[in-house]
């Protein structure tokens, strides 16, 4: 582990003084490499808070360009970034927040052909993607790579967050929680149905919280629990997520042993 410089001791003083984090926890964050899938509504607060916390390396994977309609919630990007790749805009914003963070930009769509290579360089994955094919792919790749996955999803006024950690024996995976994606056309996306902008902030900040807890080994992460947030009711509810013995990915007799491109499986173009 690296030593903290005098400037780093100051920059991270409010974390270091917390007994649960301390200098050791801070060094763990600085030695960590986190991949953020999607540099949008969820990926923005995740990347900003992980950068501020001093996570050593942040990877951003997204093939989208910044659009005006993104700016209501995607706080990594500003008006002058319209038309730029989100990963480049995100890299610049992160550099402004904390120039110590190494940012790796992956200007691609996560797919079966590149997912294992991209994930290989990281310690933890945060999924803030905006479509089911990427969610199943991120889950499968993280599970196969043995990496913890902090997943969050939002729709209109509601959000869901949970943690899958293959290093924990009882940990379920996304397929234990939702064995099948919805049929195409049955669920509207955010562009069709709208999304409450600050919802992305709340859910993304909970994802960042869980990522920091997992990286530093403090508290009880949401492994085996799904947190549900309803902004209109201002309610937080937790339900249990059980590892499914019939799971085709993480069950005792897996039928999924390699990555699949789910565009075809889900039948949607996102």
């Amino acid at each position: 582990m690296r030593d903290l410089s005098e400037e780093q001791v100051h920059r991270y003083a409010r974390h270091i003084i917390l007994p649960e984090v301390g200098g050791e926890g801070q060094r763990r964050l600085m030695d960590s490499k986190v991949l953020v899938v999607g540099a949008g509504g969820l990926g923005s607060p995740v990347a900003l808070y992980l950068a501020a916390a001093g996570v050593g390396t942040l990877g951003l994977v997204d093939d989208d360009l910044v659009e005006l309609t993104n700016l209501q919630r995607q706080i990594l990007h500003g008006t002058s970034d319209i038309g730029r790749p989100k990963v480049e805009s995100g890299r610049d914003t992160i550099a402004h927040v904390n120039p110590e963070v190494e940012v790796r930009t992956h200007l691609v769509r996560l797919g079966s052909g590149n997912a294992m290579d991209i994930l290989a360089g990281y310690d933890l994955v945060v999924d803030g993607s905006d479509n089911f094919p990427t969610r199943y792919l991120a889950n499968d790749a993280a599970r196969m790579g043995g990496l913890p996955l902090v997943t969050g999803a939002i729709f209109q006024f509601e959000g869901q967050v949970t943690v899958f950690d293959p290093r924990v024996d009882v940990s379920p995976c996304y397929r234990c929680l939702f064995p099948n994606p919805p049929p195409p056309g049955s669920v509207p996306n955010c562009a069709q149905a709208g999304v409450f902008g600050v919802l992305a902030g709340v859910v993304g900040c909970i994802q960042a919280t869980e990522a920091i807890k997992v990286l530093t080994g403090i508290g009880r992460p949401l492994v085996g629990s799904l947190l549900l947030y309803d902004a209109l009711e201002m309610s937080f509810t937790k339900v249990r997520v059980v590892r499914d013995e019939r799971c085709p990915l993480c069950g005792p007799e897996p039928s999924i042993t390699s990555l699949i491109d789910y565009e075809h499986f889900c039948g949607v173009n996102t």
Partner: protein
Amino acid sequence: MSIQVRIPTVLRKHTGDQATVQASGTTLAQVIDDIDARHPGFRAAVVSEDGALHRFINVYVNDEDVRFLESLQTPLKDGDTVSVLPAVAGG
């Protein structure tokens, strides 16, 4: 028998925009039928044509996923809370 059923945003069009509805029944299937009697179309939103719960919608009794209990035949008692939870993908 009074069961509180929490309805997610995406399904509130089937419950007159209500976030929670009260229903009666001693099994999950009866509660779904009870809601469907007042809000036609609700059952089809959570139960597929083969008579099982849709695989992309989870239903919890209190905090337990009914897939790991007795699915639609899961017994309910007065005061239980049923939560309907669709998979969502927005980010």
